[in-house]
């Protein structure tokens, strides 16, 4: 594996075929351990238990009131009908027991019931919304701080896009689905219970009819969902294919053009497009008619209720007869029964998405962090920069040892050049010094203190670091330079920039030090980015230095400036330089020669040449070809 493949990649690669494209609607993502994940989610919700219980209470109360509404209306309409038939004026309406009300009063009461029901419904959502947002907020904070606690080794096996997805998309998913799911569950279950109870109280026969039809509707819905899953999966897969193909073709547009590859590209595109069409038609159709079919069954239910209700009304049997207004009531109950059942079906899907997203988030949150710091850690008072490598063994994987028994001693202020062919493993030494990875055996000591006996933060604060991949963030130049140095004044920052040959171009920018860089600093040139990172290291003023000299994509003048700046940075500091310049190498006190991850030779320039080994071959190869 090369250095590049070990580094955190910036590619938004997703390995899953349908990870790259927009998800097909209603695509059901299954979590691997539903129960386990839901338990964890439950635990995460612990601080909100009171809100959840209150919300449940309001949901139940609201459902009860919602169920009473149609019944009261039914009583009113029944009395109206009866009065009409009996050609008598409207009298009092009997509720239960000895409660009788006049029409007007009962009407007011009913409106009151509706109002209270709506109000409670709103309150329960109100509470849940607050809860979900607080939950999402904590999750975001926990996740983002977790990122900086996970060992770099963790990221080797993950794709950038995947980790990013967990912290952003998955949290968004939970944000969107949690309120909805919880809210619906309480309401749906409560409503269903009350409606069914009420129906049975009013007329067991009609209740039976309604329930039978509802069950039918439910089974039909389930069949539809099952049937559509296959199509949705295909659709999601096609979308992934489409996205991949398009990403490639657009990014490689110029190459596709010049190699007259358009015809081949288009053929592939056409195939994918048509596949997508096929699966899209089927999946949209099936999901599109699921509700109408359920609606049809609902209507059928409506008709049966009307017909059978009518028959019951006409019946002389006191056990089964009903008031005419109750027909209207049952018609409304039919709707009230279907709704929660549809909800529950929907919730099942939504919960799956929530679970899938939560699972991925918990995986991340549960990953092992860098080993906790011990209590008895040492610090170094006056850092001199004496570094000793003793019998160091290391491998990124258990099976492949990359550094085998390395020994070296670097005196304070010395310059160490690290050289080797591309991909040889030069950044490994950097990774070990900074304890981005831990060595397998042996020791690295700084001023006599084993680096494992130091707090990581303390160890890292000993080194100023300038890497080949410049890292800048969206913010002012001032913020970017003072990143990592606390409480620096403007003049300190300017002094550091001057030292690093950076001040002059900053002055030429609109806003100078307040000029805002965009993501990755792409609004200034690569060379300028490099200079800013050098200024950052300059300002941080650490006792030792780790530098990567690679400046291959920078023009000569800027390169010269960078070289100057680096020289100044390295003065009187123990420096580890991944060297690309002959002058650096010739000047170095020690040269580590790396090949295939291993340190194959060490010494100074003349000494190594005399050895006539790998270094000498590497060095002389530059003169051939003339």
């Amino acid at each position: 594996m090369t250095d590049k493949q070990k580094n955190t990649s910036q590619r938004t690669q997703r390995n899953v075929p349908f990870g790259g494209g927009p998800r097909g609607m209603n695509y059901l993502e299954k979590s691997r351990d539903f129960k386990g994940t839901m338990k964890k989610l439950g635990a995460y919700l612990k601080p909100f238990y009171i809100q959840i219980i209150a919300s449940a209470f309001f949901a139940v109360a609201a459902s009860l009131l919602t169920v009473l509404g149609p019944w009261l209306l039914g009583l009113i309409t029944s009395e109206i009908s009866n009065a009409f038939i009996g050609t008598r004026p409207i009298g009092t309406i009997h509720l239960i027991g000895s409660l009788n009300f006049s029409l007007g009063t009962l009407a007011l009461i009913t409106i009151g019931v509706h109002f209270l029901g709506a109000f409670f419904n709103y309150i329960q959502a109100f509470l849940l919304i607050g809860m979900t947002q607080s939950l999402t907020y904590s999750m975001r904070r926990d996740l983002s701080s977790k990122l900086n606690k996970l060992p770099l080794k963790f990221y080797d096996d993950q794709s950038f896009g995947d980790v990013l997805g967990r912290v952003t998309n998955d949290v968004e998913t939970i944000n969107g689905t949690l309120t909805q799911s919880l809210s619906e569950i309480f309401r749906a279950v409560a409503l269903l219970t009350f409606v069914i109870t009420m129906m049975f109280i009013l007329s067991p026969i009609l209740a039976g009819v309604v329930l039978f039809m509802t069950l039918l509707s439910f089974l039909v819905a389930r069949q539809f969902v099952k049937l559509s899953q296959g199509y949705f999966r295909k659709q999601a897969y096609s979308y992934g294919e489409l996205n991949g193909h398009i990403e490639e073709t657009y990014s490689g547009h110029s190459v596709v053009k010049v190699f007259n590859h358009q015809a081949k590209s288009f053929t592939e595109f056409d195939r994918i497009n048509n596949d997508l069409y096929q699966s899209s038609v089927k999946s949209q159709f099936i999901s599109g008619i699921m509700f109408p079919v359920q609606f049809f069954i609902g209507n059928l239910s409506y008709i049966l209720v009307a017909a059978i209700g009518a028959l019951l009304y006409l019946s002389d049997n006191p056990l089964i007869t009903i008031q005419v207004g109750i027909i209207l009531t049952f018609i409304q109950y039919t709707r009230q029964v279907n709704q929660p059942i549809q909800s529950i079906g929907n919730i099942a899907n939504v919960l799956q998405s929530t679970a899938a997203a939560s699972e991925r988030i918990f995986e991340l949150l549960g990953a092992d962090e860098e080993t906790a710091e011990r209590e008895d850690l040492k610090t170094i008072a006056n850092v001199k920069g004496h570094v000793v490598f003793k019998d160091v063994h290391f491998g990124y994987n258990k099976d492949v040892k990359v550094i085998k028994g390395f020994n070296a001693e670097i005196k304070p202020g010395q310059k160490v050049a690290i050289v080797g062919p591309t991909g040889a493993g030069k950044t490994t030494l950097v990774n070990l010094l900074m304890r981005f990875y831990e060595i397998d055996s042996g020791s690295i000591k700084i001023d006599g203190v084993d680096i494992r006996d130091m707090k990581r933060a303390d160890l890292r604060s000993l080194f100023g670091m300038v890497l080949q991949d410049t890292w800048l963030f969206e913010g002012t130049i001032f913020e970017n330079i003072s990143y990592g140095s606390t409480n620096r004044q403007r003049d300190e920052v300017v002094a550091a920039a001057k030292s690093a040959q950076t001040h002059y171009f900053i002055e030429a920018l609109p806003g100078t030090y307040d000029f805002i860089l965009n993501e990755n600093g792409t609004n200034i040139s690569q060379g300028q980015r490099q200079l800013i990172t050098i200024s950052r290291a300059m300002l941080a003023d650490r006792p030792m230095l780790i530098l990567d000299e690679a400046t291959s994509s920078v023009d000569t003048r800027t390169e010269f400036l960078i070289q100057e700046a680096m020289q100044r940075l390295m003065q009187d500091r123990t420096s580890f330089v991944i060297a690309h310049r002959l002058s650096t190498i010739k000047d170095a006190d020690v040269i580590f020669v790396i090949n295939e991850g291993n340190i194959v030779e060490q010494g100074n320039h003349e000494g190594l040449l005399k050895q006539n080994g790998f270094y000498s071959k590497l060095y002389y190869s530059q003169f051939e070809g003339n």
Partner: protein
Amino acid sequence: MKNIFRFLKPYRVGVIIVFVLVALRAVLDLLLPTLLNDMISKGLGISSTSVEPSIRMIWFIASIMIAVILISIIVTIVSGYLESKIAAGFALDLRKAVYQKIEQFSMREMDHFTTSSLITRTTNDIQQLQSYLNMLLRMIILQPILAIGAIAFSIAQQPTLSLVLTASVIALLIMLGIIFALTIPKFQIMQKLVDRLNLVTRENLSGLRVVRAYNTQEYQAQRIDEAALESKKLNIFVNRITGLMWPIMNLIMGATGIILAYLAAKYFIKFDGSPSFEPGELFALIQYAMRTIMSFMFLTMIFIMIPRARVSAIRIMEVLDMDVEIEDPIDPVPLLEKMKGEITFENVTFIYPNANAPVLSNISFTVKAGKTTAIIGSTGSGKSTLINLIPRFYEITEGSIAIDGIDIKTIAQNDLYSLLGYVPQKGILFSGTIRENILFSDSEDQSDENMIKAAEIAQAKNFIESLDDKYDYHIAQGGANVSGGQRQRFSIARAIAKNPLIYLFDDSFSALDYETDRNLRRMLNRHVTATKIIVAQRINTIRNADQIIVLDHGKMVGIGTHDELMNTCGVYQEIAKSQLSKEELA
């Protein structure tokens, strides 16, 4: 932007059928409450005209109702199928059109939109439109007809009472109006916050080492916290307000029913046996009232959908309506029988659109057939741009570029490409086998021998043959599963396999280590006799070129061999001096 509807044209028959079917379904649905009324007055005998209850009547009306809903569901299924087909077909056509349009784009258009935006427009935006279309095809007819129909039927039952309905609808619309006025402006801000959260997370992920080296974990946490907190507050606000919608709607519906019943009983129904507004009619009226309120609710949903759909539609039309800068001439000049590969630049000037200063000015030189010309200069000197002008990726502002005396503007683009072997600065590979990548062009020689020879020259053969699958090894999207150096070598092999007349190397050797660079150039010199143009940073890469052109701030400041330039060209001397004293070992 309404031009996007022209993509519906092929489906207009289907669309009309859908509209008719949906209208039919709406009307059928609206019949049910009236039939219920009939059942109650005629079947149950609750009517002022003395009618006896009749069980036969009940079943009769029930069977009519069943027939009605059966027709309705069949109609719905048929129209549903049509809707899916139309929406999917629309998306298919649109995608194809966008893809083909983008295929024609020159670099100016690609730069204008940015690759990631184009990807989103081709995938997300079209997908959004498809969903909206699917819904709109149905709703745009269904809901208005249901709403109007329900109102009409209500009025038919009892015109005065229907005024109550008007009041309810107005109340509903006011409520919705307030909710939308409060929340819709917030949507954009919410989106921006999501973008910001993504940005900060991406930055953190790409700078893991830096964060640890500088111990800025707290700072990073703070950055996220700011955005997350604001997002939380905004989300709570917006969601709590939109949460009012359904409860209030239900309240209005419920209250309307009661008020109608009360008013009917008090003022409209006569209880003395004389003909009047009947309970059956009241039942129907109540149902129509509720139906009306629901329909208005859905109608407003549609109005929310339309602007969103419009945003996607605009984005797509921007691509389709874009003027492509570079097109084939109407009467393209055919290539000569035997092309030699001589390139001439005459007074070429190039300015980027919206720039003040030219990137290149007055560039004139000739590259003789079969010779190697190198281009060197500092960053920003215009080297890459120069080489990009030869395949006509960009159109030059002044002057002309000719191959074998033929102005490239007069040749068909495909013909121009067939002459060129282009190797970009960053190795770009495509998912597929190594074979497919090397034999990427449409040239005639697609043989394995050709491929292997190309791989050998490009110093990639050893690596490939060390793999289990060798030339059938699968390259992942973007070439992610091979290193930068290997990608570069495959890119070079790809150009070699095409056997072009002219090679364009845009700083293609910088990702290679020195030894590979040297070997590769040696092999190229030995086996490839075509014209070569090399843009490079390293003097040693181009030292032996037949001709070196030195650029400085877009102007030619030197042209000649290495030795000549060392004697005459100041800029060249500067570059050479700074490099030869810091040659790269790694």
